């Protein structure tokens, strides 16, 4: 009786995936793979991806569902990062300039996109997905002809057109990850603190915590509550005088801006800006993560972001070294495809409102 209750609370997908994760961790220990490395990787990948997953929250809360058009925000985030790199700005200045450029651009894009989505209620996910694909392929042309001149960013031959991956090592790479790490630690620091700071990317995690707190506080304000009401039931909201269309635009704009910030955070941690087709591969893992965390197409909370990102990234991080020892290298990628699409499929085939 009680077990059933607990099972229902945890939910089928989370049970399966955490069991799998624990199993992999046991195998990893048996294979003598260093734990500190795994913990560091999980935390780093968590921080890298969590903001992109967070971007799904306002979109689900305002009733649009999964924002498959995350690439829209991502592109403006990339433009922010690229402009900052073009001027050779370094570390924090570079990071904040990138954010300052990305936020207004993605706000405008988000508002326009929200206006468009209000015309296609009920088909947002399909339309959004293809809209995202078209934007990304259009931007492929832009990256080729964009007026960037910095020789570190353009193709060596010809001197024009941006490279596929640009290193951020000399600009803003690792600025958040290494915010609390030093070349030489001061002597007053105890040893455990030093190794803690080396393993935990504290700056990265704190940045996510701040952004998550902002989204959480926003959802508790009057504006945020109205937005959730608008998202939960169209009829109920409009009969209560809530302007549903307005709140949908608000939710989508927030989501787009978070995606823009998210990709800057992702890139600085990864150390590279990835252009051309790379933004295409942002939305599905983010959608999968939040659904694994327990969100549905109608309901999402911060806790879903944290649990989902942790489980999904944890699984990938642990699976990789274990599988590399046990089997072929491509297995980890296949697992990622199967799990992420499987969970989205699972959510899509639930009845309205049921959690995944």
């Amino acid at each position: 009786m009680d077990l059933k209750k607990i099972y229902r609370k945890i939910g089928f997908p989370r049970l399966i995936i955490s069991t799998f994760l624990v199993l992999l961790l046991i195998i990893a220990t048996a294979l003598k793979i260093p734990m500190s490395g795994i913990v560091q990787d999980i935390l780093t990948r968590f921080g890298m991806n969590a903001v992109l997953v967070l971007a799904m929250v306002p979109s689900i809360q305002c009733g649009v569902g999964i924002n498959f058009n995350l690439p829209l925000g991502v592109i403006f985030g990339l433009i922010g990062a690229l402009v900052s790199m073009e001027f050779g700005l370094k570390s924090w200045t570079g990071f904040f300039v990138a954010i300052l450029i990305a936020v207004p651009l993605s706000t405008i894009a988000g508002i326009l996109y929200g206006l468009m989505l209000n015309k296609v209620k009920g088909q947002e996910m399909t339309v959004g997905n293809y809209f995202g694909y078209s934007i990304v392929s259009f931007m492929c042309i832009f990256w080729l002809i964009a007026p960037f001149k910095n020789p570190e960013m353009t193709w060596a031959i010809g001197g024009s057109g941006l490279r596929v991956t640009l290193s951020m090592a000399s600009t803003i790479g690792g600025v958040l990850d290494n915010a609390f790490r030093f070349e030489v630690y001061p002597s007053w620091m105890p040893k455990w603190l030093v190794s803690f700071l080396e393993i935990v990317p504290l700056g990265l995690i704190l940045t996510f915590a701040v952004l998550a707190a902002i989204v959480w506080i926003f959802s508790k304000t009057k504006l945020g509550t109205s937005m959730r009401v608008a998202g939960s039931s169209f009829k109920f909201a409009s009969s209560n005088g809530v302007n549903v269309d307005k709140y949908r635009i608000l939710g989508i704009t927030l989501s787009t801006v978070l995606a823009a910030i998210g990709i800057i955070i992702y890139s600085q941690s990864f150390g590279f800006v990835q252009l051309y087709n790379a933004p295409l591969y942002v939305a599905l893992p983010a959608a999968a993560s939040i659904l694994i965390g327990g969100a549905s197409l109608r309901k999402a909370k911060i806790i879903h972001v944290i649990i989902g990102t942790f489980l999904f990234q944890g699984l990938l991080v642990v699976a990789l070294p274990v599988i590399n020892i046990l089997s072929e290298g491509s297995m980890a990628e296949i697992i990622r495809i199967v799990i992420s699409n499987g969970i989205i499929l699972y959510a899509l085939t639930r009845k309205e409102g049921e959690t995944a």
Partner: protein
Amino acid sequence: MIVPIVFLLLSVIGFFLSGLPLNFVVNEMVFRLSRNLILVMSLIVPVITGMGLNFGIVLGAMAGQIGLIFIVNYKIGGILGVLVAVLVSTPIAILLGYLTGKVLNKAKGKEMITSMILGFFANGIYQLVFILLAGKIIPIKNKDMLMSTGVGLKNTIDLNIIRKSLDNLLFGKITPLPIMTLIITALLFVGLYFLLKTKLGQEMRAVGQSMYIAGVSGINVDKTRIIAIIISTVLAAWGQIVYLQNMGTLSTYTNHEQVGLFAVASLLIGGASVDKASWKEALIGTFLFHLLFIVSPQAGQNLMGNAQIGEYFRVFIAYGVIGLALLLHAWEKAKNTASIKN
């Protein structure tokens, strides 16, 4: 009718910019039509049944490729090889179509996005089977197909043993054009035409009009939808076999991925929409889409001095046209429901 006209203009401008000789374009076009028409046709039945554009034809394409992997493994060449591939892939396609139909019945109203994600998911399973299990658990006799480690199929598999064996059947001595494939495509179109005239076809239309009314008037809605998807998946499997026997090489892990995208874009460019499609749109759309495909790299090269731009442009067109068509359709539908309410 505005969409096909715009694309015709775009293609004609592209043709003049590219400076390609006309007979090259015509020749290329005949082959491309013979390769792609069955795949595009496989989308028609689900559209009529009201399930939108079935991105799940990717699963059908996989079934077709499994048939081809089978014949290469047993080294069955020629027209017999094509026939065996069809025979092997059809039951697989029926099974996959049945499963797809089951899943889509659970996601009514969200069929398109669900079928797309289902395609991605199936792709993962497909890779799992052919990268990890082939050669290990699945016995592969033909060692040329396996990677050097002995596990997993190679990225490209040579299909020379059946290359153009259908295209050149009977008429091969007279002309290099794929006459037989075009005849079979035409027969399938006629078959589809008559299928839609039967009772089953009428029921599909009824379900497409309104699931509720169809259900009330005694039609088994879920079953009709599953049948529609099975037909679509089987046609896609055959279409993929026809496509690959013409190409002569199988890219084991990528060939099926683009099938859904290109077929859907073709149909939409022909003027079809999410709830209306026929053989006319399939034919016109496939023609226009591939005309743009043939001319755009060269046009990009001549216009911008970079062939890559033309390449990206046609991908943009493929995605953009699907996005725009879906957008316009959903927009119109929303307007209609609003006006009914008022």
